[in-house]
């Protein structure tokens, strides 16, 4: 132990910073990738049971090794680059899809003080990073030199830009309540028990944010960008093997990201739903009922369950109805609620409801 301490103090400070940050990155990415793998498994199992099937149950005990087998299969498959495709952009597109969805995790607070970067404009950074994800889709569609892929990319571009506005407005409501763009401060403003969480005063914004999040990740029922009954597989129709798998990883990493953000901004992040005075002072029980990362994981999992439930339940939206929902329903709803919130906070004595 002493030897390691001396070794650590012996290396230059910039190398220390680099090493700590690298450890942080690994500590975030590895559980995230495992989460993605088992989210695909959970999806197949849950949708299976909802449709009175069993789902994957052959690989390993009760099918638990299925995602590993899928991963190995995808890695061993050949990557086919279509003729006349733009080779550089074709390879670049999956990278551009996954990079922002991983980069956004840098500012997520997992527990009190557990974040890779505690930047002040964290909320804006998240918005900027999630808005970059669309480039992977657009470039994939264009570089594939395929009509179906291009159609899928066009649909994705229009849809994501439209829903980003509603999403941004929903977050404006959150930052008005919290008075900060820092995600850690946003969570701490919701301290004191479940009745302080922003999901109650900002319920319309919560709904808009969550549904826009489903649309942003191109998940059912908003998955027109890859609607298989209309345009085969949309933007990634020409991709195979690992290149396809990277798109797949990006989609599921984005789902987990949206679920985490919903938990952080509306459901109190890592905070326990019980007020501090209700938690008994018994060793194990106080740890379980008190604040901690396990509450964040529970919240993320419950939000993710809704993603899967939606997919099993709703039929796909028609394209013009998606546009109508985004522009004519969500944006007015958010604007009205921001107005209500602003008036209540500054002109009426009920402002405390929104804090």
């Amino acid at each position, binding site marked *: 132990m002493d030897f390691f301490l001396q070794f650590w103090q012996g290396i230059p400070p910039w190398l220390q910073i680099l090493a700590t940050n690298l450890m942080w990155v690994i500590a975030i990415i590895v559980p995230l990738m495992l989460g993605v793998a088992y989210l695909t498994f959970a999806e197949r199992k849950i949708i299976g049971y909802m449709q009175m099937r069993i789902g994957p149950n052959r690989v390993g005990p009760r099918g638990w090794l299925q995602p590993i087998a899928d991963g190995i299969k995808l890695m061993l498959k050949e990557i086919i680059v279509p003729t006349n495709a733009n080779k550089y952009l074709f390879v670049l597109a999956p990278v551009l899809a996954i990079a922002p969805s991983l980069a956004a995790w840098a500012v997520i607070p997992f527990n009190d003080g557990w974040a890779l970067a505690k930047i002040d404009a964290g909320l804006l950074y998240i918005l900027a990073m999630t808005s970059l994800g669309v480039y992977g889709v657009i470039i994939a569609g264009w570089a594939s030199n395929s009509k179906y892929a291009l159609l899928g990319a*066009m649909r994705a571009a229009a849809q994501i830009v439209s829903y980003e506005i509603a999403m941004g407005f929903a977050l404006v409501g959150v930052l008005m309540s919290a008075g900060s763009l820092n995600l850690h401060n946003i969570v701490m403003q919701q301290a004191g028990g479940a009745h302080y969480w922003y999901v109650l005063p900002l319920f319309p914004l919560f709904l808009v944010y969550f549904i826009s999040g489903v649309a942003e990740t191109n998940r059912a029922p908003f998955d027109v960008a890859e609607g298989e009954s209309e345009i085969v597989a949309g933007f990634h129709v020409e991709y195979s093997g690992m290149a396809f798998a990277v798109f797949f990883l990006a989609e599921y990493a984005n789902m987990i990201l949206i679920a985490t953000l919903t938990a952080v901004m509306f459901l109190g992040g890592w905070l326990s739903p019980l007020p501090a005075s209700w938690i008994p002072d018994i060793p194990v029980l106080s740890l379980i009922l008190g604040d901690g990362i396990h509450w964040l994981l529970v919240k993320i999992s419950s939000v993710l369950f809704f993603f899967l439930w939606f997919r099993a339940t709703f039929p796909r939206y028609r394209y013009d109805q998606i546009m109508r929902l985004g522009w004519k329903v969500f944006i007015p709803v958010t604007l009205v609620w921001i107005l209500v919130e602003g008036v209540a906070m500054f002109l009426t004595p009920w402002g405390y409801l929104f804090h």
Partner: protein
Amino acid sequence: MMSFQHIVFFAFSAILVFAATMVVTIRNPVKAALYLVLSFFTAAALWILLQAEFLAIILVLVYVGAVMVLFLFVVMMLDVNLARLREGFGEYLAIGLLVAVLLLLEMILILSSGDFGTAHMTAPAALAADESNTRALGILLYTDYLYTFEIAGLVLLVAIVAAIALAMRKRKDTKFQDPSKQVRVNRDDRVRIVKMKSGK
């Protein structure tokens, strides 16, 4: 001795100049738009280096995340004829060169006049570690520059209304649904039960 900041600055500047040059020289319009995205992104990185994190993130959010996506959307739909694009290059070359040389001369004249440079500007005081760029900008915008800000907002609103008024036209032969009517429909509006005598 170059510090780490110098290395970062020169690296990003080199990428920015390269990307900006590619935007105007590359033939394929989609690739030109993608290089423009790269130059916006690099400019944002340079702003972060100046501790202007709000401006940098807004640049990425608005220009890279929204404006350029729509730009690519349009450019990808265009059927660009490269041969026609190259037509008339020789005609405009002389005028273009003249303008470029003039601009260069003007820049050299102004920048070498001795009125610019670090000697005339004191370095700004270092920011506190918890200094919030966003908060400072917000307070300025809503107090000192409130009227300018409101007028800018009004101008943008007028622009939105004008764009919609110019582009919107009602076609009589378009079929469309009214979703609120569809939701309000009753069983009696759609179903008519006809009593029929059963045949033997």
